């Protein structure tokens, strides 16, 4: 079938080559994911259109490819089919897999002005810098923040301007915030999502508890460390012991609706959802850094640009130009205001537009301020698989089918087996 596919491909390429070429524009295909609410595809299309106006010699086709996992799947499948995109926005943590698959090129070799790479927040560069090379450029980057419903706080007799600062405080406040109508809970205290990116949330709790989840080389995970287990214990206790969080899994995608509908007084979610929450909230809400156990902390998250190896030198050059345009201070500021993602350079926060915006809406700067406490997101070889093991373990624990200790031990064992090949 491989041979057949190649023949077909060759025929298709030959047909394409035979067609007359229009005024030699460099074509770029870019896959990108959407993991938050709001009209993100429209925002991207609009930015790409403006890029075209300024750079008529480059034609970027931006393809929305689903969530992060879907987009990675699509990019890898396209690559194995012989037609990879030239540029993609993928999880910053997919870097090991992409290097292992020999899919991408380091950015350092493509740029003449290395100073550009120093303009970004170091916390966002951390995931992409491996073996002394820079493999990705941050784009839609985030940290996890705590959203709280100020009206609900007031109703529960809490100070509406004060979010919980510690784990214990979060439990105490949640107990006051939960509202019942007979046996029926009409408002939960807190919700932390357990589908899609459960590993991310677990990492946040582990960091706060003073535990790293992986090593720099990306071939070890620490799921059975007592502090990781304690982190999951705390999470599970929120529903099973304290009864302030729904039992069962909590869906990543619908959690924002839960919050907007007043079904939960607090939620942990990506700052990337901020603008969608702002546009949808019919009540006063606040955004805070995640509460601390031993320390404050959140993993960084979100997507970065990668340039594919199979692109021609002209395409790679055009890709760099596009990335530079997209991450220029004005655009980074605009992107941050329209979505809620953290603008990727300090310079963006010095633009007048974002400065004014943050003054009127302080929530916009919380995720950035949290960068001081942030840790690189869980990123190891065979990332997709390891995420599944961790996600399964978290789900097994929150649904009560396994104790946190057992669930994490099983995940650790599976992860060790997969990662053995990379030691």
């Amino acid at each position, binding site marked *: 079938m491989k041979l057949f596919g190649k023949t077909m491909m060759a025929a298709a390429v030959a047909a394409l080559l035979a067609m007359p070429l229009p005024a030699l524009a460099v074509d770029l295909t870019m896959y990108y994911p959407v993991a938050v609410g709001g009209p993100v595809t429209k925002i991207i299309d609009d930015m790409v259109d403006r890029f075209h106006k300024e750079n008529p010699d480059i034609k970027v086709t931006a393809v929305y490819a689903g969530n992060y996992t879907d987009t990675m799947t699509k990019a890898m499948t396209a690559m194995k089919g012989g037609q990879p995109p030239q540029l993609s926005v993928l999880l910053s943590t997919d870097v090991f897999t992409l290097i292992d698959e020999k899919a991408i090129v380091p950015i350092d070799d493509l740029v003449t002005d290395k100073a550009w790479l120093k303009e970004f927040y170091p916390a966002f560069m951390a995931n992409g810098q491996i073996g002394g090379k820079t493999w990705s450029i941050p784009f839609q980057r985030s940290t996890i923040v705590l959203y709280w419903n100020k009206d609900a706080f007031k109703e529960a007799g809490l100070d509406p301007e004060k979010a919980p600062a510690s784990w214990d405080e979060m439990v105490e406040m949640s107990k006051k915030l939960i509202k019942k109508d*007979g046996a029926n809970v009409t408002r939960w205290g807190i919700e932390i999502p*357990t589908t*899609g990116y459960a590993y991310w949330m677990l990492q946040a709790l582990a960091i706060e508890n003073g535990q790293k989840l992986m090593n720099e080389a990306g071939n070890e995970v620490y799921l059975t460390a007592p502090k990781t287990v304690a982190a999951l214990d705390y999470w599970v206790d929120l529903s099973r012991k304290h009864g302030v969080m729904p*039992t069962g899994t909590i869906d990543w995608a619908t959690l924002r609706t839960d919050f907007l509908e007043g079904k939960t007084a607090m939620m942990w979610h990506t700052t990337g959802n901020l603008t969608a929450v702002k546009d949808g909230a019919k009540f006063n809400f606040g955004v805070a850094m995640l509460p601390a156990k031993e320390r404050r902390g959140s993993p960084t998250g979100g997507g970065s640009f990668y340039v594919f190896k199979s692109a021609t030198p002209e395409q790679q050059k055009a890709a760099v130009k596009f990335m530079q345009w997209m991450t220029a201070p004005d655009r980074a500021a605009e992107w941050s205001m329209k979505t809620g993602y953290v603008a990727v350079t300090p310079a963006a926060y010095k633009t007048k537009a974002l400065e004014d915006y943050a003054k009127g809406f302080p929530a916009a700067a919380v995720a950035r301020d949290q960068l001081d406490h942030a840790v690189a997101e869980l990123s190891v070889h065979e990332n997709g698989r390891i995420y599944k093991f961790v996600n399964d373990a978290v789900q097994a624990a929150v649904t009560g089918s396994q104790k946190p200790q057992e669930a994490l031990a099983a995940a650790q064992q599976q992860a060790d087996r997969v990662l053995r090949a990379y030691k």
Partner: protein
Amino acid sequence: MTSETAAIPGRAPRTHAWWNTVNAWLLLLPAAVLLAAFTHYPILATILHSLHITRRDGASVFVGMDNYRAMFEDGIFWKVLVNNLWFALGTIPTSIALALLMALWVNRNMRGRAFLRLAYFTPTVLPMIAVANIWLFFYTPDYGLLDQIRGLFGLPAWNWLGDPSTVMGCMIVMVVWKEAGFFMIFYLAALQQLSPDLEEAAAVEGASRWYIFRRITFPLLMPTTLFVAINAVINSFKLVDHLVIMTKGGPNNASSLLLYYIYEIAFTFHDTAYGATLTAALLVILCTVALVKFGYLDRRVHYQ
């Protein structure tokens, strides 16, 4: 041609037979080529691939039965397999029974029959992705349709898709809803082929309606039932679109099915060799179903 063959008696019948054979093979050729290229060759390639592992550098290494050994030790494989059996057991008999019931119902002469038929058939026309989105709303905790109804009776909200004990049931109900209308169409067509004489004759003899159904209608519908059953079995192994929308196989693989697990392994984790191994397992299951159908059931069913 007849005049020509008539002119050379003796050799003629053999040429004729030979030409017939060639002709037959030529007619079969297009379909045979397509089948070989897109069904048989991929099957063989899959089995061959399952005996290898692909290194990261692209080199293929022969490992014999290692992948199969790994599969038998893989807890998730057994879990999705058991899930798939429950899914099949939950969807097949229910959707067939429901389809038959609906077909009998809309086969009668009554007002609004066309409308009722259309209503029953609508779920079939909808794409699975759309269906999954609709039902996702039904099952949403707190403000989903189901929980709103429960709320009217003062019952607490239930996290339908987020609890391992209910998620599979939810999937089954949805798939039955989607499939029954499709199977109904086959039953309806079969019912209209049945001669009304039989029923009238039985009625004259004083047979009850239940007796007529049990001893006349149902046995005559057996070929349709078999066809529908085979389709239902196949669907229970190939229908996974809804998982992508609703649960991604969660929580903790409680709703995952074999084909979805294959997709995850092969395309999300890029482990094509193990994906091929799991595909081979799926192949064995479906071949067994086909063998039972052609070897056993076909002989037991009464075709008119």
